[in-house]
């Protein structure tokens, strides 16, 4: 490698080389080009910044939060308005600092979103690729099941499930996961169908690759970029459903600082102490906006077909 | 006879992220009521030349010409409304693939009637009559039936005839045919061409025939422009093609196989960078 005639002058040139010397270089180069496209979209960068802040806040909640999220000052600090000394965003009816509750609540939000994504994306990918690649009755049965779940009202089904399982954040995650995987399966199937008959798949099969290997190594990677985009975009929806469950008292239970539940408890004071319900709503809005912006940016950078429009 | 179309130093370029792409770089020709072929490989600017005359250049493109005149009308300075009335009314265009260039949710008859009623103030009934006549003129045997069919219900050859009918129904004087037969089966190509040929001859229209197929163009047109990289490299009468001087033209001619001769290795088109200048 040392005597390559045109030695790379900079990392950037090396990444952008149109004659990569190795697979790693080719992959990194493509990732770099995607990043350049992503970074040229200011809104996407705003979204990325929001998500980074969210992760940092969740990681360092203990250090960042000025007060306890659960124990309040009932005597001296009930329902203080925002910008009160020591309480930037005010306090709620139990004298708890709203900012601290929001900071700790970010952990719950992040947990719910990540758990749901980790459960649903692989399930959807597996069902979709298997159905698309196998075809025939396997496809028929799997897609029938997917369609049945797809035809359900997501939120109402999640409600019924939580009602049966009992309220709580774990059950909320299960309920959301059960209702969220079908779109991924549909999408993965469509992508699989598109590549199933392509010549490169035929070539791999000709070399004796087993169906499992074909699906795992050659079909699934083709579905990944659209799956990532879709999951990112869906995370905003997951946050909203989780918050909705919390609002109805079916998600995280008090005194846990879940943002949706915080809105529900602030609802009683909406006329006089507007901030109690407003602040957590802003938090939800900002975070799901962050996911939407990043998802949009990813779609434009990973899927040039759509970006060209 | 006064020429129908004057094109002098026509340039079309597209600003892109990686700089200005010059699709057409100074094309000049005049056209009477004759058949002019424009030949070139893809990317040579032949289609953009046709679209610039139609006024269908995408809005982000930059377009300039020393002269771009149709029947005494300066096309580049003409108000949009006038340009629009020319399109379909006096200058028409046949596109490549009827699968994509006909509106899939409108019946063929309605699409033909639409052209007519855009340019002439005729009643529904008359418009329908004339559309049926036009369908008959493109040698569709059962016009009344085809009138009510949707584009997906007809074959490619039939679709292209419908396309021709749609474009010629308002009686244009100039027709730009952009690869009108490339998407069709070989057997149908000749049929469609002969229909086009007869209509152009009968109505005394000018024709700009854009194609990548030199042989087709040479057998069909009176005169041929050979384009390469946005420029005209050779202009020659179709009958003189055998004496073409430019190496690119000779290369294109050379690429065509002839029956009864064994050609190994197959010739490869030679592209010299200095032709781009």
């Amino acid at each position, binding site marked *: 490698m040392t005597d390559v005639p045109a030695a790379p002058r900079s990392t950037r040139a090396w990444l952008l080389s149109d004659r990569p010397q190795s697979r790693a270089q080719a992959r990194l180069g493509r990732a770099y080009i995607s990043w350049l496209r992503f970074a040229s979209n200011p809104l996407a960068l705003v979204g990325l910044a929001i998500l980074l802040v969210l992760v940092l806040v969740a990681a360092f909640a203990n250090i960042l939060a000025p007060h306890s999220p659960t124990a309040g000052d009932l005597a001296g600090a009930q329902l203080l308005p925002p910008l009160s000394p020591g309480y930037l965003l005010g306090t709620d009816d139990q004298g708890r600092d709203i900012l601290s509750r929001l900071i700790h609540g970010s952990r719950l939000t992040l947990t719910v979103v990540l758990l749901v994504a980790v459960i649903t994306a692989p399930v959807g990918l597996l069902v979709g690729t298997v159905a698309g690649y196998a075809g025939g009755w396997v496809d028929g049965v799997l897609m029938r099941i997917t369609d049945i779940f797809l035809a359900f009202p997501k939120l109402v089904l999640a409600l019924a499930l939580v009602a049966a399982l009992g309220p709580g954040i774990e059950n909320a995650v299960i309920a959301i996961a059960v209702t969220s995987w079908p779109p991924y399966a549909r999408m993965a199937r469509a992508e699989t169908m598109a590549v199933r008959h392509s010549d490169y798949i035929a070539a791999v099969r000709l070399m004796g690759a087993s169906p499992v290997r074909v699906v795992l190594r050659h079909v699934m990677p083709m579905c990944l970029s659209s799956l990532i985009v879709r999951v990112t975009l869906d995370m905003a929806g997951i946050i909203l459903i989780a918050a*909705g469950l919390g609002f109805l008292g079916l998600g995280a239970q008090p005194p846990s600082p879940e943002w949706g539940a915080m*809105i529900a408890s602030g609802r009683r004071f909406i006329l006089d102490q507007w901030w109690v319900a407003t602040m957590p709503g802003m938090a939800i809005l900002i975070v799901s906006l962050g996911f939407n912006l990043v998802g949009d940016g990813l779609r434009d950078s990973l899927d040039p077909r759509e970006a060209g429009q | 006879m006064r020429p129908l179309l004057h094109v002098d130093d026509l340039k079309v370029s597209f600003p892109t992220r990686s700089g200005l792409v010059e699709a057409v770089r100074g094309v000049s020709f005049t056209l009477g009521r004759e058949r002019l072929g424009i030949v070139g490989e893809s990317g040579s600017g032949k289609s953009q030349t046709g679209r610039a005359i139609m006024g269908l250049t995408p809005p982000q493109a930059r377009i300039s010409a020393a002269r771009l005149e149709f029947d005494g009308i300066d096309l580049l300075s003409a108000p949009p409304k006038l340009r629009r009335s020319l399109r379909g009314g006096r200058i028409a265009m046949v*596109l490549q693939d009827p699968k994509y260039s006909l*509106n899939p949710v409108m019946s063929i008859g309605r699409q033909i009637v639409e052209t007519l009623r855009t340019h002439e103030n005729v009643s529904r009934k008359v418009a329908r009559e004339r559309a049926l006549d036009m369908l008959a003129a493109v040698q569709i045997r059962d016009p009344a039936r085809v009138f009510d069919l949707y584009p997906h219900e007809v074959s490619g050859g039939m679709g292209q005839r419908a396309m021709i009918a749609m474009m010629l129904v308002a009686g244009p004087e100039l027709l730009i045919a952009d690869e009108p037969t490339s998407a069709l089966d070989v057997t149908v190509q000749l049929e469609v061409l002969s229909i086009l040929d007869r209509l152009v001859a009968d109505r005394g229209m000018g024709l700009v025939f854009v194609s990548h197929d030199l042989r087709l163009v040479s057998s069909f047109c009176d005169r041929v422009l050979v384009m390469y990289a946005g420029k005209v490299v050779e202009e020659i009468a179709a009958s003189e093609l055998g004496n073409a001087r430019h190496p690119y033209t000779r290369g294109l001619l050379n690429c065509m196989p002839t029956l009864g001769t064994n050609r190994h290795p197959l010739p490869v088109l030679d592209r010299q960078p200095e032709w781009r200048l």
Partner: protein
Amino acid sequence: MSSTTMSESVRAGRPFHVRAWPVAIGVLRFAGVVITTFLGLLAVTFFIGRVIPVDPVLAVLGDRAPASAIERTREAMGLNLPIYQQFFIYVRQALAGDFGTSVLTTHPVMSDIARVFPATIELATLGTLIGTSLGIPLGVLAAVKRGTLLDQLVRIIGLIGYSVPIFWLGLLALLVFYAKLGWVAYPGRIGIAFEYSFTPITGLYLIDALWQGEWEVAVDVFRHIILPAALLGYFSMAYISRMTRSFMLNELGQEYIVAARAKGLSEARIIWFHALRNAAVPLVTVIALSYATLLEGSVLTETVFSWPGLGLYITNSLQNADMNAVLGGTIIIGSTFIGINLLSDLLYRTLDPRTRA
């Protein structure tokens, strides 16, 4: 073997030919899809209601029910039968509209739902009307004026609509338009003054009031419905405008648009007739989906606005562990979803000549 696959792939790559199913087979397939989806819906609610809870009887009656009632219900629910027979009975009852009795209201769940469902339909329909009538023009304009300030504005309005919790926005809207400005009426769908004098016919109050010529009532009903409907309309608009923009961009890039320009048509006709008429085909599905989403979004919206519809009924039942009512409501909303899908499918077929058999 592989060479045939390759050549087949070349042909399969251009799916020009619409499969021309004989009509009868098409209808049968269609019916099959609807029936299996409906059975699937029942299977899931059956699973939630009978399998997940440790004791379904307690889930239905609540844990304060007397022992005799528990025994009777156990028999009535057929819990001593094998599970497949239980499901069979469940399906038969569901088809007969029998979802059991609500613990909370002591009425049959079905009659409760029949009473509250029109309120939800009225709200979701008005919301969809608002969302569609604003969303389609905005989406078309955004696509046509792509990259301009207007496009950005539509995009941002849409993004916020995708990101904001509906119940929270509802609370803020109430705070501003009801409490501070007093422009709208709250709570419920009709003022106390008219509640007993007004006798609805269809259950859609706005239509009923107008039909009967009760202008005062109509104004009052309108003041009640406009805020929640506008809220739902905003969400619907966010979705519809975004999809319209994307479909329109796709259509405007097609060759038939070039052909339409070559014919000399005006831009207005090309955009609003040719392109939109083609974009309308997938838009039907989007609007149907948006309507379905609003129906289920009613669960949260109705809670905020105390709107006496199916959503509020379900959440009230949830809080009282009234599983019969919750699952009955779920089945009704699910069935409505299936019905909407069916309708949009049929409409799709009539709009797109390529899918007509």
